[in-house]
């Protein structure tokens, strides 16, 4: 009996592995380049593929690689640092010309960065945490500046409120780095306006349903709310549903971040969402930097991607009905 239980468990574990896939490197393209000149090969270690933002990273990287005539190898770390390291090691073993890494694993990933350095392969860190330890080698760090995004949102709100009013803040998951950085930019900036009062600050856990529930409670507690700042679009969309149900949409403005497609549609077609700060998800710049590095060009240690403020006045410029995010 015990034996059959063990057997069953082993079977289930194997099944889980098969279902979730084993994070093997997948060629996004067959190796081409029959014309004497060697084609540049770039490796891209993506941290996890369970979020539209991450999927859009990969899609745009593939498109940029195809447009620029280089080969791209994408690996999926499935949110597991040891898998990410194994993936980067396999990219090094394949002698790629540059490696783009997007990791959420903090310092657990550093050994892999050192290995890439020893193999003299340029390392581009993108949409990811940057090593705070300056002994960790990398070529460049390319991402939006989350702190700046927070500042921009605060300035926009102060401007639209005429420097006074009641503000509700919906934060992401409290332990999230992005949430902390966005707060770090937003809070000092908004505190410059003493007449803007923060009446509630709660976590909506980055998700629509918790944000809707928390916002419902906040609406109960506060009969005077002028603006809601949600740290991402998902939470803003949840908050909007709660505000509409309470019949107070005409009195409350909603401002958010990320500029996902659904949010841009809301800005374009309704007055429910007022503004979202763009969090660049395209990896075009990262791929270009990887090619430059592979060609031995000198590149900057920090490349900041634009994070424009998108509202009704300029939404058409950014709205792409075909985008995946």
């Amino acid at each position: 009996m015990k034996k059959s239980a063990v057997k069953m468990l082993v079977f289930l574990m194997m099944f889980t592995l098969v279902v979730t896939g084993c994070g093997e490197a997948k060629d996004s393209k067959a190796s081409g380049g029959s014309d004497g000149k060697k084609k540049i090969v770039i490796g891209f270690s993506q941290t996890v593929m369970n979020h539209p933002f991450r999927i859009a990273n990969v899609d745009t990287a593939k498109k940029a690689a195809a447009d620029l005539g280089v080969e791209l190898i994408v690996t999926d770390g499935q949110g597991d640092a040891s898998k990410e390291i194994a993936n980067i090691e396999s990219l090094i073993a394949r002698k790629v010309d540059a490696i783009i890494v997007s990791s959420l694993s903090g310092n657990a990933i550093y050994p892999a960065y050192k290995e890439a350095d020893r193999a003299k392969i340029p390392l581009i860190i993108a949409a990811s945490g940057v090593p705070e330890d300056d002994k960790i080698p990398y070529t460049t760090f390319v991402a939006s500046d989350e702190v700046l995004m927070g500042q921009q949102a605060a300035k926009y709100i102060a401007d639209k409120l005429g420097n006074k009013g009641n503000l509700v803040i919906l934060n992401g998951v409290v332990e999230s780095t992005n949430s902390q950085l966005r707060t770090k930019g937003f809070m000092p900036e908004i505190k410059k306006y003493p007449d803007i009062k923060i009446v509630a600050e709660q976590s909506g856990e980055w998700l629509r349903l918790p944000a809707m529930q928390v916002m419902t409670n906040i609406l109960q507690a506060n009969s005077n709310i002028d603006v809601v700042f949600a740290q991402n679009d998902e939470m803003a969309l949840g908050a909007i549903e709660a505000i509409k149900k309470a019949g107070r949409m005409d009195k409350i403005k909603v401002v958010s971040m990320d500029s996902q497609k659904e949010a841009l549609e809301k800005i374009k077609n309704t007055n429910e969402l007022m503004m979202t700060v763009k969090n660049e998800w395209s990896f075009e710049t990262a791929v270009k930097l990887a090619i430059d590095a592979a060609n031995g060009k000198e590149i900057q240690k920090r490349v900041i991607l634009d994070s424009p403020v998108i509202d009704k006045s300029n939404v058409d410029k950014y709205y792409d009905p075909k985008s995946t995010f």
Partner: protein
Amino acid sequence: MKKLRTYLPLATLVVLMIVGTFLSDKFLTYSNLMNLLQFSAESALIAVGMTLVILTGGIDLSVGSIVALAAVVSANSQQLGLAGILVLVLLIGAVIGAINGIVLTKFRVEPFMATLATMAIFRAVTLWYTNGGPILGNITPAFSYLANGSVLGIPLPAIYVVVVFIIGYVVLNHTPFGRHVLAIGGGEETSRLFGINVKRVKIWVYIISGVLAALAGMLITSRIGMGEPRSGYQFELVAIAVVIVGGTSLTGGRGTIGGSFIGLLIFAVVMNIMNLLNISSFVQPIVRGLIIILAALAISRMLKSKASAGIA
């Protein structure tokens, strides 16, 4: 002893309600209490199933993953109409529940392990199915009404909470099946000797838990208007906490559906008060943790002192 298990949670809830009323004048209002109740619907469905599971001495960790799968599938099959979606969702819950039940009875895998495995598998299946992203189908107005409609000013989800607990109560206390569930938790061997088909009852309990979780997933999709594959994370832990605080013993056999209803309300009231008072998001999980510890401690202490008093 049975009385204690019932009255301690109830007393806690009453105290919390009084505290809430003093702390915020917005607490004891009709609309606030209705919101509190209607946002408990998903947890209510899962907690009723979890109560039955825990009463048999088991545990079901897979409910959160069932929620997610049912949520995305119902978003992706809007063309089937309300009845079609309902059948599909019930099927998902029943099949996964049956897998749980069969694995842990026929193959004698611990419930914790069997449902831990299905939890991982069906979360992965969900992400695989959606490619990780949300499903932004065109949710039909009829489907949206399920969670957003109201009857006589009462939001439908609030009605579901009451209905599912009443059904749970009747099933547990007024059917042979319910008596068998309690008997199995009290002692499997004895139950078997009395001619109860232990395996069959257990499989059914997990099927019920799966079906209720799947309905919760469908409700979430109706509420937020899309299929979110990240739905239901940690719902199993919330449900287990609700059941324990409601006075049900994790070892099985002892506990009530009514207790779980009170447990659910305790957590809902606490979250509501913390939101109303704008308590820091960092502190909120600490408060929830303390409630679980205090409830467990109070119940075990009082039971012990009663037991020793009985001996003396």
